[in-house]
């Protein structure tokens, strides 16, 4: 097995396009977007609303090299200064390192 970094970004739906651009510009070869169902933050429970995309949150998962993660982190940090979201990076083991 080979070590890689796993980036998990929870971000509001309206800022997803910007986050995707950042990851692609940093050279990330692939990522997966999941839709969040509900959560709690800033003293308030929220759930995915059927009405407005303003309340929707998404989860972006990407696995790649350290250097690509570093390239993306600065821009993602700037994005999260304005938009609602949470970012974490962890070390994971993958079977096929050439894919990332």
């Amino acid at each position, binding site marked *: 097995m080979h070590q890689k970094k796993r980036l998990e970004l929870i971000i509001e739906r*309206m*800022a997803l396009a910007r986050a995707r651009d950042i990851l692609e510009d940093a050279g990330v070869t692939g990522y997966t977007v999941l839709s969040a169902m509900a959560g709690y933050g800033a003293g308030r429970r929220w759930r995915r609303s*059927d*009405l407005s*995309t303003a*309340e929707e949150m998404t989860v972006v998962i990407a696995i790649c090299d350290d250097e690509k993660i570093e390239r993306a982190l600065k821009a993602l940090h*700037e994005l999260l200064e*304005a*938009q609602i979201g949470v970012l974490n990076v962890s070390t994971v083991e993958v079977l096929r390192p050439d894919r990332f």
Partner: protein
Amino acid sequence: MFDLALATLLSPVVLFFVLGLLAGLAKSDITIPEAVSKGLAIYLMMAIGLKGGFEMAASGLTGTIIAVMLCGIVLSFALPAIAFFFLRTTTKLPSVDAAATAAHYGSISIVTFVAATQAVDLSGLPSGGYLVAVAALMETPAIVTALLLAGRSKKAAQQNAPAQQSAPTGLLREVALNASVVVLVGALIIGWVTGETGKAQVEGVFITPLQGVLCLFLLDMGLSAGRGLRNGWRMLQPATIGFGIYMPLVSAAFAALASFALRLPPGDAALFMTLAASASYIAVPAAMRLALPSAKPSIYLTLSLGVTFPFNLTVGIPIYILIAQYIAA
């Protein structure tokens, strides 16, 4: 006159909304599946767009219609400035939250409009289909005013600097290609072009069942409003909640003046007042997350969907119909 107002208040549409609202507040587990809910929303946009288009095919485009459209655009630009003034003088909201909230009150809620259309029909008042076009025109100018208001505050501008770099294209797409605007305007044009022939072909699906489908949709809206209010009421000060109730009346008063000046028939005046009084909770919140991300959605969404929407649906619409009948008389 008051009997009509009471009949509106006790119509199945409003009562189903109240049922949903109470169920949402009481943490009931009623759930309308998301796909059904989104399908119903598209159906309603198509139905109301087609209805307006068919009526416009019959009435044509007159000088009064163009004047109402222009009044609608002017109101959508102006109402956020008035709302911003009230919010800044009566509440402690920061300017960026006040600007984002104000944008919602210049824009419109198409579901409130659909409910008002049904109430006006129930009251036996004829109304022009062109008001659907007015609704579409009033959706976006408020966003521009809100951005100008927020931009006046240097602090707000600094807070939003990172977002403004990426916002314009996304914001334009969100506003111009918003699903409700595209379907509504598209259906209006299709209804206008196909006229009576088109109406005969689709009325079995889009006109006759509208009341029943609206009951189902408003049950879902009531659930959303109740849950939003339950989760977000702590974010609202009493003065802010008060704003969510008196601002629709202020907006309706401006529309009533315009209706009086243009000598609109009572059905048209009631719908125009409803448009001015309604607050957006679909297009504008999404646009505000891009344009003013430091504004708190828990404030403007809770206020618009949890306070103003239920107020308009239960109390506001009957009041607007009464005022429209009074000024027409």
